[in-house]
């Protein structure tokens, strides 16, 4: 299967603190990979490095065989229509309605008529079951709805992959299921991605493969069953903690 994203020997420091020492992995087309790890192991930082929101210190990142880690900010704009980012908080623009939030990237990157734009936005809102909330503002939404609106915004341009930054964190079990259903729907439409989470049961429902980050390195890469049966002490400790 075609490799969409390839990360090679990524290193990231914040001042004297090393967050990532040597991160390497690949993401295949339509594949969803779970990125697991304890709090503070730099999972979100890794996602931010991949999409260029943070600069990395060393290493290489390839998207569809093209090296992207050396690109300047404005060169990355086009890439970010193909690799989108779903923020942990949703990061919706609080001065815009849900509809306007989702229409924002559409207006920036696609030249559509008002009717075409409305159809696209309402389609993706239906996908996240929020078509009745289009006129609401982020402050009117619950945490779960904000995350779903954030997912809709990440999906609206039909990217090749989505970087999910803890989309289930802080949600009640019903909303966790809703978010996972949405991620599976995206997956069925061919949109894979990287799912950052601590929640192994949630990862099992969506991911094809799991990666475990510890001490700035990937200490496990493999399928869900392999993860459960691993004899690696770090993996076992993480499994036990769950």
């Amino acid at each position, binding site marked *: 299967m075609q490799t969409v994203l390839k990360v090679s020997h990524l290193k990231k420091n914040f001042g004297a603190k090393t967050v990532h020492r040597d991160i390497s992995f690949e993401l295949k087309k339509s594949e969803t990979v779970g990125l697991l790890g304890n709090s503070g192991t730099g999972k979100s930082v890794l996602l931010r490095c991949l999409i260029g929101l943070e600069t990395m210190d060393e290493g290489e990142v390839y998207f569809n065989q093209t090296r992207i880690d050396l690109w300047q900010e404005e060169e990355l704009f086009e890439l970010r229509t193909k690799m989108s980012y779903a*923020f942990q908080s949703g*990061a919706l*623009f609080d001065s815009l309605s849900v509809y306007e939030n989702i229409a924002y990237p559409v207006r920036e990157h696609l030249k559509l008529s008002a009717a075409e734009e409305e159809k696209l936005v309402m389609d993706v809102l239906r996908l996240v079951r929020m078509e009745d909330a289009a006129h609401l503002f982020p402050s009117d939404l619950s945490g779960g709805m904000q995350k779903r609106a954030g997912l809709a915004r990440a999906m609206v341009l039909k990217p090749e992959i989505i970087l999910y930054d803890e989309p289930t964190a802080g949600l009640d079990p019903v909303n966790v299921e809703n978010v996972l259903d949405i991620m599976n729907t995206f997956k069925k439409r061919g949109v894979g991605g990287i799912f950052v989470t601590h929640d192994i049961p949630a990862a099992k429902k969506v991911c094809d493969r799991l990666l475990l980050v510890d001490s700035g390195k990937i200490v496990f890469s493999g399928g869900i069953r392999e993860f459960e049966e691993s004899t690696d002490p770090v993996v076992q400790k993480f499994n036990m903690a769950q």
Partner: protein
Amino acid sequence: MMVKIKDQFEFFGELMSLLGKSTHAIFSRPFYWARLNEQIIELGSRSLSITIVIGFVMGLVMTLQFGYGLAKFGGTLYVPAIVSLSLIREMAPIFTSLLVAGRIGSGIAAEIGAMNVSQQIDAIRALGTSPIRVLVVPRLVAAMVSLPLLGILATFMGIIGGMMIARSEFDMAYGFYINKVLATIKIHDVFSCYIKCMFFAVVIVLLACWKGFQTKEGTRGVGSAATWVVVRSSIVILISDFFLSKILILLFD
């Protein structure tokens, strides 16, 4: 001490970098005309009433003070010239800019700061757009357009206020007052007011946007950012006014 000096150099460097990127963004695509329109309404139109009041009151007070002060030396007739020249060259640009720094500068810093701490700035970038183009450029251009016009308006209102006090307190005819003002104010004085306001607009918006982008520590950081901008931009406006005045006098007088 050395660390503080280094910090100041870094701050100045970042500010110049922001100015450079903003200037480049002004003259390249995409340009957000709708956002510019919104900002002109926010920065310009919504500052109209307070500018009118401040300009008018400045004219009243200055005419009153100069009138009684100069009356002791028989110089009441010079009041229209002194008041109008002071207004257009110094008082209107300074007071209007300080007012805008308080009303708009703090608002910009708080808005961008709040967006920063809630990851909305990151979201702008992650959606393939530039925070400088989306947030800084419309505010910068709107301030550069609006503030000089507000400065001219404040001058005009000051002259009207001065004329009314000159009439009621010193029995000076409206026609005489207007003639004296028109004979005193030259086109380069209007230009001087315009240049100063434009410069102060750049100072206010750049400081406010820079501070907004640097904001951390949640709501507390947002509040501090707003205060910081008002204090810093007021100091920069007052100090740079001296040097600007000196340059403009050398150029035009």
